[in-house]
């Protein structure tokens, strides 16, 4: 589990930021992106997948959430 920050990037896409690793990347897809449910699994541009518990409303961005890395090599 790691704290990540999701914000709206300059290009309008959602941007993912992992402060511990200074990893900043665009989010290509987010599992739930509706007004009722927001979150779940997300895929980054570099292919890595993360998961965080979906929120019940669309939050005000940026937001810090606890996320888990899914699959892939764990470095």
């Amino acid at each position, binding site marked *: 589990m790691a704290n990540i*920050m999701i914000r709206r990037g300059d290009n309008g896409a959602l941007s993912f930021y992992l402060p511990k690793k200074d990893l*900043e990347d665009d989010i290509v897809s987010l599992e739930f992106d509706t007004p009722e449910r927001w979150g779940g699994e997300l895929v980054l541009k570099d292919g890595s997948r993360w998961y965080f518990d979906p929120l019940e409303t669309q939050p005000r961005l940026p937001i810090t959430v606890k996320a888990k890395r899914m699959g892939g090599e764990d470095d």
Partner: protein
Amino acid sequence: MAALTREETEALIQEVLEVYPEKAQKDRAKHLAVNDHEANAKKCITSNRKSLPGVMTIRGCAYAGSKGVVWGPIKDMIHISHGPVGCGQYSRAGRRNYYVGVTGVNAFGEMNFTSDFQERDIVFGGDKKLAKLIDEIEVLFPLNKGISVQSECPIGLIGDDIEAVSKKATAKFGKTVVPVRCEGFRGVSQSLGHHIANDAIRDWVIGNRDAKEFASTPYDVAIIGDYNIGGDAWSSRILLEEMGLRVVAQWSGDGTLAEMENTPKVKLNLLHCYRSMNYISRHMEEKYGIPWVEYNFFGPTKVEESLRKIATYFDDTIKEGAERVIAKYKAMMDAVIAKYRPRLEGKRVMLYVGGLRPRHVIGAYEDLGMEVVGTGYEFAHNDDYERTVKEMGNATLLYDDVTGFEFEEFVKKVKPDLVGSGIKEKFIFQKMGIPFRQMHSWDYSGPYHGYDGFAIFARDMDMTLNNPCWKTQTPPWKKNDDAAPLAAAA
């Protein structure tokens, strides 16, 4: 010499790596790369790792990042170098963060305050000494607006409780006293010091005026991550003000504690040095909903781009203002380029600095017709390289935390016309007969930001590059042996 091809650059890296033992070779290979626009920065270069033991690294420490970079320039606070005397004294005023004020009365930028640790302080702890030091400061310098306690290595090692001392002092004097846990041994470079300093600002400064009234305008901005080296923040600030914005705070060059406390009231944070201050910008975005935008004030092309980019966050008056500013300085910039470009056209530059410069100054060199053929950071992270890959030409050299040996070898092989790096590299390259600019504090010149800065930048580059002295230089180790007997006799 023509630019190297991809294969040649790769071969060059291999050649330089050959000298290392196998394990070191493997480690260093990850930090050297050939720029490739297609590749993912994360895959092509490793950064923010511990330097290899036994090589000459050019990095600093967490204390340097906190006291020297982030906190130090805040002029109306007193920054105590808590620990032995050397850390503060040898870094005193070296960065040339200019400020307005009377030193020793209401501004303290160039002064060194230290608790001067002795053996007994290590044995019995230094908290009492720190408390006494703060009392003395209040008597001698009553106009200080606050104090920050910048820890040096021993503080963390002996486990002093500077937080308790700071809280007591805050209660006693009613002033902001900030304990900063930036012991030098933390992290791999000064970069962690920036982060720690940002976190200290977040915890002890940012929220202080949340409840207070502030007469704001829709055009309030803050300059974040400009340290006013040689007056950089001033030459940036006038452009922003000319286009109609109100600069509420300068972080932290020529900045004050009050400015920092008022920053959460601005409409937009303008972030120049991404590396050292993105943390606080992200924090303000999350807590106060203030957007931040990176900009680049090196060279007319980038200034123009940045002014327009900043203006998109505001209404039409600012957009018009930006165009007005660009138009106003157009003639001046054309004259500068017309004068210096013919003298500098086609020259090749290699850089090795820290923070934002390895990518930000590329545009300024390109405006002068010069080409940056190699660049690298002392303490960058992955996100910096991602931004750099786009700026640099294909097949150019990238080096992270370059060692003294590697840098010398790269320069010998690539043969740039100009090297831009720090003071530790300066004299080696000058003795090799290669024009050199110290790009950390602009070689005692500056400012380089903004339109006024570019004129100085162009002049300095020309002055260095076309100086006739380089042709007469022979490195001491290439001289004939005539001098040798003399040295032996002496």
